[in-house]
């Protein structure tokens, strides 16, 4: 009987046939690489171009834009996901099963880069969050701990990122492409999150035990400066200020000079994003830059558009004349043609909700086998970090610190301006006469003060323009404590009344508007005809700015609530030590 039993027991000893057990894994560089690959796919934002903000909106406003009761506390989810952190801590715990010490170092550094990346997202969203650097057990007390101060998180993030900077491959060639993280990407991340933290604390007047905001601004400036000094990157230019900016984003492959870290898209592999169709197909959101945004583009001579007479009620043709060349490389303006085509295209008011129709990331129509205009068929690589952002971060950190010099501007902002043929930003001129438009309650940031007020406003202008559609704006508003910008008017092109309008500058009508109650005008083929108040909503009865959203109920941004997102209800129920962020009603009475 006993022999029978033990024989049976052996029959029942079955081992997995198509999977590897944990103890046999993490042994080679390939194992570490495969295990860390999912961090890229899971954490990177693959559609930064469609974020909505006060600078660029869609037909249907996001919950953040609508505010009030459109933003609620979720029961679960809501960004409170920690799966990837666990994977990172697992890798860090098991990496030394691998005998290849160089590989251990490299993938430990890579993983710590992503841990800093992960926590940056968490801090941006929730403020204080719990810090974990071990694989948690199911009985761990730490599961139920209260939130750690953002000071602790930031301190640990700096430790992680410094380790990454020290140990990640330092030659671009070693990683062979901008699609894998190298030490320069780690410096870019450090410059980014330290700037975020420094400005957040400065504007929210947050003083925590530990470091003050200047420490973070200094860290940011130092990281950016190190990258600028020692890194192999430069701005992409072919000496064509009228098109280099646009070309950069529409190129099939990430530009290795400027893109420090990018996401690969590939027609052959069917890996796509939707940026092209997003701006071209009327069912994809109908994005448009806001009038407020368009107004911030300087005149070509470096003076503010909003300082000239009559700027408020200019026709489209007139207002876009002689502006910062990036305007014509960000939206359709007279003479616009698709890359690779010669047909002049007018802004399509049925595809762009403000009339200011974006063109960034719009590819050559022959891309993607000629299918690029179809939904989800864009293949140009998307930037995660690019050199221009580092330069902007550097200038802003220095300006906010009060240590900015003209020399700093010349090696950062002014390089960006030179690429597009704009005159240099002069610090003393800017500070002598801070821009009214950018500091007004209605259109700007009234909370910027101090000696550098003028230059800070200009840096913000530059940042808004240069990083348009790259996913930065909402976070910028949060760290600048500028939530009220969300409430500023959302409007578009100006139309003085019914009539025919030329938007391409060829003297022929592209758009005909007619008033309700009048008969629909006969129009030539290709001419857009809209009934005012019904098909095209203007701010006035029969004239004014396109104001598609004027009848949509929006609740003002809540200064007390909306800078942070809520913790999901279930998580607070499971861990009563988690406090809710201020102002959020999750129905719980504790």
């Amino acid at each position, binding site marked *: 009987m006993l022999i029978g039993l033990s024989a049976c027991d052996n029959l029942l000893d*079955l081992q997995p046939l198509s999977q590897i057990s944990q103890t046999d894994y993490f042994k080679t560089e390939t194992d570490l690489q495969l295990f860390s690959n999912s961090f890229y796919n899971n954490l990177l934002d693959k559609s930064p171009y469609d974020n909505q903000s006060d600078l660029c909106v869609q037909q249907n406003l996001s919950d953040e834009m609508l505010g009030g*009761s459109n933003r609620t506390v979720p029961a679960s989810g809501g960004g409170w996901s920690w*799966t990837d952190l666990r994977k990172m801590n697992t890798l860090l715990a098991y990496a030394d099963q691998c005998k290849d010490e160089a590989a251990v170092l490299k993938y430990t550094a890579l993983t710590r880069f992503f841990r800093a990346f992960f926590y940056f997202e968490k801090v941006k969203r929730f403020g204080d969050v719990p810090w974990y650097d071990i694989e948690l057990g199911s009985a761990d007390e730490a599961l139920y701990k209260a939130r750690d101060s953002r000071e602790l998180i930031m301190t640990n993030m700096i430790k992680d990122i410094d380790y990454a900077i020290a140990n990640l491959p330092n030659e671009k060639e070693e990683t062979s492409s901008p699609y894998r993280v190298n030490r320069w990407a780690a410096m870019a991340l450090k410059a980014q999150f330290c700037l975020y933290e420094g400005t957040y604390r400065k504007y929210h007047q947050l003083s925590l035990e530990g470091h003050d905001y200047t420490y973070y601004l200094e860290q940011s400036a130092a990281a950016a400066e190190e990258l600028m000094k020692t890194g192999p990157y430069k701005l992409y230019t072919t000496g064509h200020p009228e098109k280099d900016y646009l070309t950069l984003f529409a190129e099939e492959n990430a530009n290795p000079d400027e893109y420090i870290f990018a996401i690969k898209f590939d027609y052959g592999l069917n*890996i796509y994003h939707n940026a092209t169709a997003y701006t071209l197909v009327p*069912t994809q959101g109908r994005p448009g830059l806001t009038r407020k945004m368009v107004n911030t583009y300087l005149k070509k001579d470096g003076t503010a558009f909003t300082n000239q007479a009559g700027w408020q009620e200019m026709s489209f043709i007139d207002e876009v004349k002689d502006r910062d060349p990036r305007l014509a490389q960000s939206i359709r303006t007279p003479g616009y043609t698709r890359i690779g085509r010669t047909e002049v295209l007018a802004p399509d008011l049925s595809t762009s909700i403000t009339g200011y129709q974006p063109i960034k990331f719009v590819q050559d129509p022959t891309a993607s086998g000629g*299918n690029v205009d*179809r939904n989800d068929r864009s293949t140009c690589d998307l930037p995660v970090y690019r050199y221009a952002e580092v330069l902007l971060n550097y200038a802003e950190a220095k300006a906010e610190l009060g240590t900015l010099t003209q020399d700093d501007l010349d090696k950062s902002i002014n390089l960006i301006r030179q690429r597009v043929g704009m005159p240099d930003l002069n610090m003393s001129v800017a500070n002598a006469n801070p821009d009214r438009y950018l500091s007004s309650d209605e259109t700007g940031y009234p909370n910027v003060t101090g000696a550098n007020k003028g230059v800070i406003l200009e840096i913000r202008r530059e940042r808004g323009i240069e990083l348009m559609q790259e996913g930065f704006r909402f976070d910028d508003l949060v760290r600048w404590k500028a939530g009220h910008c969300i409430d500023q008017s959302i409007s578009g092109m100006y139309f003085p009344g019914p009539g025919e309008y030329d938007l391409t500058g060829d003297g022929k009508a592209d758009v005909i508007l007619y008033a309700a109650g009048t008969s629909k005008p006969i129009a030539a083929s290709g001419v857009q005809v809209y009934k005012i108040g019904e098909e095209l909503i203007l701010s006035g009865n029969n004239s004014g700015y396109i104001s598609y959203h004027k009848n949509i109920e929006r609740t003002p941004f809540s200064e007390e609530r909306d800078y942070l997102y809520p913790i*999901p*209800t279930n998580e607070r129920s*499971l861990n009563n030590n988690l406090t809710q962020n201020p102002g959020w009603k999750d129905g719980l009475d504790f």
Partner: protein
Amino acid sequence: MILLLLLLVAESISVLSAQNRVVSGKVLDTQQEPLAGVTIQVKGTSKGSISKADGSFSLQVPSEAVELNFSYVGYLSQQVKVTPGEKNITVHLREDAILLGETVVIGYGTQKKVNLTGAVATVESKTLENRASHSLANMLQGSVAGLNITTSSGVPGSSPDINVRGVTSINGAEPLVLVDGAVGDLNRVNPNDVESISVIKDASAAAVYGARAAFGVILVTTKSGSAQDGKATVRYSGRIGWESPTTSTDYETTGYWSVYTINKFWKANSGTLYVNYTDHDMQQLLARVNDKTENPDRPWVVEEERNGRKQWVYYGNYDWWHMQYRDNHPVQEHNVSISGGTKDIKYLLSGAYDYQQGILKANPDIYRKYNMRSKIDFRINKWTTMSNNTSFYGSQYTFQGDGSVENTLAYGARHALACFPMKNPDGSWLYSTPYLNYKVGNGRHIMLGEGSHRNVERASDFSTTTRLVITPVKPLSITADFTYRLYQTRNTSRSNNMYFREYPDAELGVYATGAGANRLDEAVNTRNYYSTNAYANYDQTFNEVHHLSGVVGFNYETLKRKNVSAYGEYLSSTTLDDLDLVGQNPDGETITGVGGGQNEYALAGFFGRVNYDYKGRYLFEASGRYDGTSRFAKGSRWGWFPSASAGWRISEEPFFKPARNVINNLKLRASYGSLGNQNVSSYYTYMRLVSINDFAGYSFGEGSAMAKYSTLSAPVASDLTWETAQQWDFGFDLAMLNNRLNVTADGYVRNTKNMLTDGIELPAVYGASVPQMNTADLRTNGYELSVTWRDQFTVAQRKLEYSIGFNVSDYKSIITRYDNSEKTFAKKYYKGMRLGEIWGFVTDGLFQSTEEAQAYAKKVDLGYINKGVTGGWQAGDFKFVDLDGDNILGIGGNTVDKPGDRKILGNSLPSFSYGINASVRWSGFDASVFFQGTGNHYWYPTGQAMPFWGPYSYPYLTYLQKDFLKDVWAEDNKDAYFTRPMAYSSTSGPLSKVNDRYLQNIRYLRFKNLTVGYTIPASLTKRIGIDMARFYFSGENLCYWSPLKKHTKYIDPEAAIDRSDAYNNAYYPWQQTFMFGVDITF
């Protein structure tokens, strides 16, 4: 046909004329007690009579010698010859020994029904015959108390969910199904092959199956050939009919009301229009609102120049449901069997073919099922028999669509408003239009219409068992068997580019990614199953009073599963589906992928059972099994599952004799046992495994394939072991009034211990699925009662037999251990929780004025539920009651003790399941009806359940309820059921908060089956060599009554279940079946 039948009847009841005399007498039972109601019939005539209360009878008979037939339910019929001179006779009828000796199949043996001490219910083949249902499992619904069968899908060939005695475990275990002793599948058995089904409900009877029997065992025994001197019996049964949905398909088909309603809801949410139609357009729609067909003066599609382009404007009244789906679709079934044998060789061969067309219209979905079985028994010598039982099952479901037919229905249920046609006037498909930010019908109508998205789901199942039975000495028999089963699923799924036109002057657009890619997927999943049993049975009676029987044995089985899958894109042909046709993409690359995976498990067990009875009066049984499984780690692998039961046949006691007139049999039963459940989710639950995967869409620009990544499975607890179900059962079996009334009742308590649960819910910072642990207990209390009444009497001098039966069961399950001391709702369970309880808010009608609403909102903070309440609280919103009086509407501490403003509103588990059947048989005619239903149970419709919520869910639904606005609150419709229009209210707004106002009671009573048949008298059919010929009609799921009907005629109460995500949008309708059949034996 009917005329022919009538003629046959007329002939059969034509009376022979003769001279008459009277014969009288008495009918008594063996105890000399008179029998009332015995049918007496003169053989060869239709003359007859019935005995009176004192057993006396008298009837007129011809003067020559006659034979009288005495028949009575529960007694053996008796023929008595009456000589010409005889006038007075006394007849003694004996109780039907077969009835008493009826045997029941139990684990590794059979037992006399009267001696059963466990709770075992049987279903005879008669019950299953003629049911116009396609699967055996469906036929069992409602036929056994405590066997709960719930239909989970209306898709042809889908299998229902089965459980014995309610919620078995929070892991939802299913009963073990054995077909002729080998693990099988109820849906793959040919119902015509079934001899009997035993449903083992309690622990004692199931104990010999140990680790898999915790939640009941269903033993299916198939028919065998019988010794009939070599004569073969051939039976053919076939039927043909049609199916149609059980619920309404009458949706809004006028463009005007469709656009009007949906725009109204859309606008309430976003302030914009969903269909960008102007007032002019709406007037055009209104002008056509009564046009059933297109009026040449008012075309349904108008070509106009707008925004600088030629455009099609759509003003139609299209019925999207009936353009794509049909209500009536044909079904047929054919069965042939041949059986026979001699003393030494018996055989049975059977084959069946089942053909069903589904609801898809342009390219119908078709389900085909094939069954074959061959059974042969050889008697090798005096003490050895060998048998082989081989069966084959094959099925094939072909359908058009993306992924699954349910998926196709669900995604097609959006964005196709009645104003839109499927095709533009130029014949191109409509998919994208400038008036819509979405895609019409998500393009699913193109797939269905083009026939370009071909899917085939094939399953085959081959099983062969060879068994040797040796009987060396009389009371002992030794059985050894070996079963091999090979079953496989093979799925093919093809998609193709879809072309459409957006503007009259535009080029054809193409939908070429995702569901529109030119791609072929093939997957094969093969399972090899081996099992072997060896056991010895012993059965002996000593001194005529001590009866001892028992079995000991060994069982081993193992299953290996292997998957292979592959896909390729850019096929060179759009009509042929083979991976050899995979071509290259425009970059010259070949896009293919492969997948694999295999795993296995093994089980071994030693089992035994001993039965003893004294004079058939005191019955004892003890059994047990020592079971091991590969699914747990060494050390936690083996378990011992004992049980015992006892019975007392009071009716056999001498003191009971006086009562035996009334009560023919009364047995009390009690049992206790402990069983295991090894059905944990994975075959290697105790190990953490690394998998290597391809990204769905990520590349590092290295090489021409997707990048790979590895993942580690969630943490595990190393000491996982069985769930154990300990079950008490008390019951009685009662037969009375001459066996006409039979009652069986059982009560039980089942404690499911150490349930494997996702441990405790952990905060998300844990970052992985929570490891499973044996950490929860559940107690289920329940009862079952079944009552049958059978009797017969004479109508128009012919015997009329009838029966009526009723069964009912109910249960209640309570969590008795769970790691949630704070009783928070953030964890799934808590100690003391009754399974299925629904917590929600209490409401107090709709605000009838905005002042009232605002005043209330001022008093009570409604911030928790105001998502999507645009324009603030106003008339037509509904009033949530501040139950705890704290002036904040909320969820308090989110615990049972501090639930905020919520309370228990009902329970989602059916409270009272019942079945009622009745049948009558007379002069060749037979009829039966079967009803089935449940008592109160509740359902809060999922937010995405469009057939219930309409545009309160996703507002752009295709299948808008007809006249929906009459249920929508408006100033002139203040008594409406629903609130003011509010898109997304049920998915994320106030309607998504479970509340009493919209909680649905989904109890139902279903007219499950009606069968009417006529058997042509054998005397006629024999002339043409036919032993039996019967024609019948059978209808399944004929109608239902349910409170749910009050609020929606589009959801069958049995379909009121929460499906995964989008699948709630629309579902494949549950079907009713109407069939005409013939059954011929010769």
